[in-house]
């Protein structure tokens, strides 16, 4: 009898501990997609110490939650994010940044952009605008792990209750809104759980199934291009972000943490991308060096002056991998009890590394609005509340999206006059500090 009793108590404890138990659960917030932006929203809401019930639904959660301690000896990361000063400030405020190892962050204080055809260039320096750095390159995995460590710590010490669901969403059940009466949406997960919540935050990327299920229109433009990412070792140490506009698209070399490690993002035509992806390492190194240092007749310019030109690439450490380049934007960010953040709301060209920064800006704005709403006991799912978020974020995101698209268009044009004006424009800009300052302020998220 006593065994039976003890066993049933044990089972009961397992039942409450195990989040994967089937049944309907109610939450204040369900975050669909636990990538960088989703995790940052979660950390932000938990940070405010609100007694909120939050659920994160992410199929790869187990990987993110696993502690880095006994990870397979660090292989070189491939996917990185350039965190601009504004995002960095916010991550510091959320105490996520401090959880990153200083060896995982590579900040750069100088950026050089030059055009392969006109030869004109422009150099940005953080000291020109009084910033500490222009940005920091962090491996996505490292940043994600820091976010989850912060979430777990807040879940332990603060009042927020956070549940993790290691699964995807199977079906969404939205109910129509009538005179301010909107029933809570029900999300059925692939593992059988049913989540019932006040507000769904969709952070599930540009292909967002959540957005599609809510019938929010999405317009997109495919650039007919792919971006290739490679992690490389350079011959010399550098602390500059290099970006060169080739006739086929921009190529960027970003310093990463580690001994002479850098990350290359090369946007190019689909054909060239497929050739490069299947090329041998030696051939790829050759192509990369040509892309950065090559001149018209395919001879590599080996300048000793490392301030002017990027260092020569000597080794491929990881990659290549490639992904398609799509510009996309949702026609609205909010619906009753639904809000889109990050790439689910907008996807931009990676040429200035702005994607994740826009996502963090969305997250920061949303967290702020939810925090204000909580102070006055408002329902998080109210459309009038969520519209504030759309009102604040949509114009800014559209501005950035169109600026990047404009840059891409100007630099991909091979028309003589455009090319000439481009070169002239860059030279003029390069000598005019206020204009440079304005550009940096815009790119670093300083303009609020």
């Amino acid at each position: 009898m006593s065994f039976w009793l003890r066993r049933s108590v044990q089972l009961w404890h397992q039942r409450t501990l195990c989040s994967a138990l089937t049944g309907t659960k109610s939450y204040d917030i369900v975050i669909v997609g636990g990538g960088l932006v989703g995790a940052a929203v979660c950390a932000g809401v938990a940070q405010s110490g609100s007694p909120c019930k939050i659920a994160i639904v992410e199929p790869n959660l187990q990987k993110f939650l696993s502690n880095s301690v006994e990870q397979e000896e660090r292989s070189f990361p491939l996917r990185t994010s350039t965190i601009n000063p504004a995002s960095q400030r916010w991550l510091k405020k959320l105490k996520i940044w401090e959880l990153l190892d200083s060896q995982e962050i590579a900040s750069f204080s100088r950026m050089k952009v030059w055009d392969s055809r006109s030869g004109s260039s422009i150099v940005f320096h953080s000291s020109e605008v009084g910033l500490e750095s222009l940005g920091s390159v962090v491996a996505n995995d490292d940043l994600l792990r820091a976010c989850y460590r912060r979430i777990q710590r807040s879940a332990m010490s603060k009042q927020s209750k956070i549940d993790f669901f290691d699964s995807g969403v199977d079906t969404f059940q939205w109910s129509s809104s009538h005179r301010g009466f909107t029933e809570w949406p029900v999300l059925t997960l692939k593992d059988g759980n049913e989540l019932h919540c006040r507000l769904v935050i969709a952070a599930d990327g540009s292909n967002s199934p959540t957005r599609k299920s809510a019938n929010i229109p999405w317009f997109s433009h495919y650039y007919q291009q792919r971006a290739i990412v490679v992690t490389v070792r350079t011959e010399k140490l550098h602390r500059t972000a290099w970006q060169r506009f080739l006739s086929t698209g921009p190529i960027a070399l970003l310093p990463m943490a580690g001994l002479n490690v850098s990350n290359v993002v090369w946007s190019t035509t689909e054909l060239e991308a497929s050739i490069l992806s299947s090329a041998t390492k030696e051939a790829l190194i050759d192509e990369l060096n040509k892309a950065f240092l090559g001149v018209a007749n395919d001879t590599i310019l080996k300048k000793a002056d490392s301030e002017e030109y990027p260092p020569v690439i000597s080794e491929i450490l990881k990659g290549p991998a490639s992904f398609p380049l799509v510009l996309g934007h949702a026609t609205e960010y909010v619906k009753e009890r639904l809000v889109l953040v990050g790439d689910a709301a907008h996807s931009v060209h990676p040429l200035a590394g702005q994607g994740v920064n826009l996502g963090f800006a969305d997250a920061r704005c949303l967290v702020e609005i939810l925090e204000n709403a909580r102070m006055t006991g408002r329902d998080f799912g109210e459309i009038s509340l969520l519209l504030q978020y759309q009102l604040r974020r949509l114009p800014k995101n559209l501005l950035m999206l169109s600026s990047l698209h404009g840059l891409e268009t100007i630099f991909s044009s091979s028309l003589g006059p455009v090319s000439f004006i481009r070169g002239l424009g860059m030279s003029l800009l390069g000598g005019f500090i206020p204009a440079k300052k304005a550009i940096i302020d815009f790119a670093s998220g300083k303009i609020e």
Partner: protein
Amino acid sequence: MKAISWSSGKRILKLGYYRYVSEVAKFNKHAKEWWSPTGPVAPLLRFNPARIAVIRAAIETYISSSKELQQLPLQGISILDVGCGGGILCEPLGRLGASVLGIDEAQDAIETARKHVSLDPFLGTSVKYRLCSLSDLVSEQLQFDCVTCLEVIEHVENPQLFLDTLKQTVRPQGLLIISTINRTFFSWLSAIFMAENILGWIPKGTHQWQKLVRPEEITWCLSNDMKLLSSVGFAFHPFDNTIRLTRNLGVNYLMVWKKCSGNQSIGEPVKSYAVHEDNKECPKREH
């Protein structure tokens, strides 16, 4: 605060003679629209966050309780919302942790309120609604830590009698929070002429200017056994569509009253909702 003028006090006594429009029927008509962000109550919904911020601040400042143990800011506070309508004030207060009772005499409004609160499983039992009048609660001798009465007094037949009854539902040392529209030229211009006739935000005939109540008149009725702690005005900023707090009580205003201990008007011992024991003196009015 201006000195209480006797003429304005007398005016309140006279208000009962004004033509009585069936106010309850008027509110029943729009009962289904209480939560609609585009309906006739939408301006009230817009005022809501600002008013809740003030109410929350008043309760936190003047009704002290041990904050460390609480998860929610208003936990353990009992609130009565008189004229709750569709429950647009009750639900947020409930979410802040208070146990709220909303009463209204319009049946449809109460039904709307009950239906809406049932959508939110987290509110559970903390928000309740009753179809009854204020005097029913008085006869049941119920008292609350805080009684809120927002945008109601301008719709009642006899404000003085109403305020007298309202007082009796507040526990000693409890708060009475009244919000209404002032009877000034500007209130006529903005709350009636602009909002009803020009912009069409609220249905025509919602407010009669003659029935609006001035702060002095409320003071005249309440100052016997209650103390005015603070009063604040609300201003609508048309450019950014927000509501801000102001010192100007010219249009919409809110007053926070505290009931002084030892209320003689009730006389007999009362069954109290109140859970707090603090016999401190009423704090001095803050400027």
